[in-house]
């Protein structure tokens, strides 16, 4: 059984089409006039006005490496974020902390930490999986570069973007 699509009954004016053209013109010209008289509210003129001031608390911008108030970059190069990253944007090269260092018992730190921002999908899994509270998605979102290589954030850039974050758990204090 074929299903018969109900067709609307058209009036004569709709059938000859030209009056409906005028009706359409009335709508679009109404918008034009409203715009010209300044009645339409244009939301945001982007480069001058930005979202930045109104970003919500939970906004997920670019992933960054944070430093705590003792000045230590918290990453211990466990590579969990590298494994969980869905688009495989993260590359970590672990290094060993020398024995005479204050934090020698942490054992490892990232020699290199690269996040390829052409691959990153801002999903926040790296932040979620991090056992050290070392990687956070901050509110930066404008990244432009003239080459693919420039779009890779290296360790220095990530630390700079991350900045200092206070109020985190300190599990590597000498006392513990």
């Amino acid at each position, binding site marked *: 059984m074929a299903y018969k699509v109900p067709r609307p009954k058209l009036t004569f004016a709709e059938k000859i089409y030209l009056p409906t053209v005028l009706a*359409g*013109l009335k*709508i*679009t*010209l109404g918008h034009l006039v409203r715009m010209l008289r300044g009645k339409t509210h244009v939301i945001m003129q982007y480069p001058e006005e930005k979202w930045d001031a109104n970003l919500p608390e939970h906004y997920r911008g670019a992933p960054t490496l944070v430093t705590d108030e003792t000045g230590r970059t918290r990453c211990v190069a466990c590579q969990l974020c590298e494994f969980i990253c869905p688009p495989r944007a993260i590359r970590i090269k672990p290094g060993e902390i020398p024995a005479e260092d204050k934090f020698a018992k942490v054992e490892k730190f990232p020699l290199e930490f690269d996040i390829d921002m052409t691959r990153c999908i801002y999903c926040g899994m790296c932040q979620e999986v991090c056992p050290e509270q070392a990687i956070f998605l901050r509110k930066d979102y404008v990244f432009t570069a003239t080459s693919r290589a420039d779009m890779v954030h290296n360790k220095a850039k990530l630390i700079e973007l991350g900045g200092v974050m206070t109020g985190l758990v300190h599990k590597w204090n000498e006392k513990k």
Partner: protein
Amino acid sequence: MNALLQYLHVAYVFLMGPVPFLIWTSLAKTIGLLCVVLGLVSYTVYAERRVSSLMQDRLGPNRTGFPTSLLGFKKDWSPFLGGLGQPIADAVKLLLKEDFTPKYVKKFYYWIAPGLGIAAAIISLAVIPFGSTLWGVPMVIANIDAGPLFIFAISSLGVYGIVLAGWSANSKYPFLGAIRSTSQMISYELAMGLSVVPIFLLLGKLNLVEIVDYQVKNGWLLAPGLTAMHPRLPYLSEIVLWFPLAISFITFMISMFAETNRLPFDLPEAETELVGGYHTEYSSMKFALFFLGEYAAMITGSSLVVVLFLGGWTCPWIPDGSTAWYWGLVNIGVFFAKVIALLIFFIFIRWTLPRFRYDQLMTLGWIWFFEIALVNIFLTAGILAFVH
């Protein structure tokens, strides 16, 4: 010194001789008209973008000014509307883009297609009377006795640009666009040609300058009685004849939309269906030429409508150029003002109506407009036989 004056005198006498005079005035008119029309084309593109965005509650290009800061001024000059420098920026961008020719195209045809498209649109401007006279020189480049026929012949050649582009690109979407363009052209050329026959029945001549002269004396064809010097109420016979002329105006306008591939008849390029249509494989200046050609065709079409139906360069209470040179300039201004009004109407329609389905287009062309235009001819002939 005397020798120099003598040379100048000889040159002057030579230039004022009939043949050299014709040649250099024609050249001057051609160059002037080309400059005006190409400027009009680029600002039509700007108007298109700006009007469309205002209609859709956006702002559109409102930033690009003229880069006067490069010349040592303090700020860029961005006059009242903002964004008036956009066409220049667009042109520079299109010129500097990579001109990419794919490996698989038929090179020769691929290269000549864009030129054909724009040439057809610009050549037909030659017979349009865009003003009365200026210092006694008639403001039409070629005053020939078969004006509309010439325009129909040349502008239907414009489809060759599209067809060659679609075929030589050797790729399916341009090809579909080209096929659509061909069949659309055939179905609307007929209605277009037939829809202007009532005018020729009424006037008995095909010369565009004479058609405008008739409208100067008897009022616009669409507004009988609206003569240049002494506007009056239309006579009864003119009112009766107005109806077939209005029908032919509407048919002609709609066919013009189809002829210039404007929405709601832009099936050859239908972005949502055919990627970019016939110019999918083109880039840089070759693409820009298609773009220019499309808008130049719009201007040619609007000029023809203005000359045939809206009185050409006449405007009530404005004398023609034989009285003073500044009235000649005003006449040219009036003509282009009418053309610009029509172009803006084109733009309004484009951003109001959705695209027709292909079979609807064919039905409209073959079953409606062809028949309406045909019946309209007999109607006009009957009225004329009755009136005279």
